[in-house]
């Protein structure tokens, strides 16, 4: 039985997928539940806060829907970066097998994050539809594209992080410090039209802000983003993926002896 390189990679990613799914979701009985509950709870808490403040729509969009359209991409981005960058060290005992190369656990976790994102998003939207909200995205293809570009950005950053971690173990702590304020400046509970135009420059350097703006533009007929730029988002994502892959290529020997 001779397999091509691609078939070996496919078999390896499948084997890692089975293993990762078990540790990620199967370790506690409520594993799958938390994947769903976490973003839902976060959006709910924010929604309750806004309702208590007396708002029931933001930019003409129901509060809950507005929030979930920001929380979901951000959560997924956050998870993609943290999960993927720890993928190599979590699986390094398995590099003893020549079939397993360091990129395999990263691709495995990317697959898991992608699948989780789409499934959880669909379930949450279905529940909202059942509660009587109009959840059908105005332009579903654009929404998917914006989400994929953001996940690609996470993948690129995670690749860079994996390489950085070889040289500096504390890089993870720095990442945590950067990610926390990101929650507040990525436009999760506000959008560009709520900010005076002269302050836009404070937010527009942030590709996550662009991704969420573009997602909402695609999602809601009533919202048109004044700042969201496909070009900028695509460029940053592609740049990070390119640099990440280059760093991976340069450091591929070092991963094995981590």
């Amino acid at each position, binding site marked *: 039985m001779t397999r091509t390189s691609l078939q070996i990679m496919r078999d*390896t990613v499948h084997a890692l997928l*089975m293993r990762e799914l078990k540790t990620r979701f199967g370790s506690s009985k409520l594993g799958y539940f938390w994947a769903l509950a976490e973003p839902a709870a976060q959006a709910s808490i924010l929604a309750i806060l806004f309702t208590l403040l007396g708002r029931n729509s933001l930019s003409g969009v129901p509060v809950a829907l507005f929030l979930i359209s920001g929380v979901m991409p951000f959560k997924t981005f956050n998870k993609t970066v943290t999960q993927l960058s720890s993928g190599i060290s979590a699986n390094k*005992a398995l590099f003893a*097998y020549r079939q397993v190369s360091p990129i395999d656990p990263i691709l495995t976790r990317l697959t898991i994050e992608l699948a989780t994102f789409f499934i959880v998003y669909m379930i949450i939207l279905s529940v909202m539809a059942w509660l009587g909200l109009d959840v059908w995205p105005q332009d579903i293809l654009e929404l998917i594209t914006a989400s994929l570009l953001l996940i690609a950005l996470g993948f690129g950053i995670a690749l860079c992080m994996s390489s950085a971690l070889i040289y500096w173990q504390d890089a993870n702590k720095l990442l945590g410090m950067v990610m926390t304020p990101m929650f507040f400046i990525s436009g999760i509970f506000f959008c560009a039209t709520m900010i005076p135009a002269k302050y836009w420059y404070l937010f527009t350097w942030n590709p996550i802000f662009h991704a969420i703006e573009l997602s909402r533009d695609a999602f809601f007929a009533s919202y048109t983003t004044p700042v969201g730029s496909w070009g900028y988002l695509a460029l940053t994502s592609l740049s990070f993926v390119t640099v990440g892959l280059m760093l991976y290529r340069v450091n591929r020997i070092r991963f094995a*002896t981590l």
Partner: protein
Amino acid sequence: MIKFENLSKYYPTKQGRRYVFKDVNIELPTDVSIAILGPNGVGKSTLVRMLGGADYPNKGEISSDKKISWPLGLQGGLQGSMSGRENCRFVARIHGYKNTQEIEQKVYEFAEISAYFDEPVKSYSSGMRSRVAFGLTMAFDFDFDVLLIDELGAVGDANFRHKSQALLESKFETTKLIMVSHSMGELRKYCQAGIVVKNQNIEFFPSLEDAIQEYKDTYVTAK
């Protein structure tokens, strides 16, 4: 035949690059079992890991048209957070098996660690680890031309040694060993040829006794 071409391997240390191997060019036969000789820290395990594809040379390459196993030893191969059974499943899957039950069962029977088979590997003793590790290669019906062994027998009890020895002997025609061990008795039992790791290079001896003599002359001071 296993071919080393311009192979260099170093580890970065605080004093700069420390070369374990430098410009190694050699061809090792695969029709005899080979013992690897050398003192601690000279690069025996690194050599085995590179042969098994678990580590990579910094320069040059190792090529072979034979099927070489992964390095069987205490450090690598088994993932601590997975159970013995899950490790078996994983190895079967990366080797392209769709149905893994048969292999799981074979390892389970060979390892004789009963209920521990479903506990995480990190809770195993080193003897139990080597039982599973060895059972795994066995379960693949020795689908290897060369089996890499790094100090595996050292921790087994008499029962396990006897069992693995019988198994190795029964496969001797088709599967050769490349073996690291500090027990000369064990090496003499299994190997016909030897290599000595010395001066960042590898020297091959078709006769094991010559290799042992060279090893003693080079490294053993108390005669």
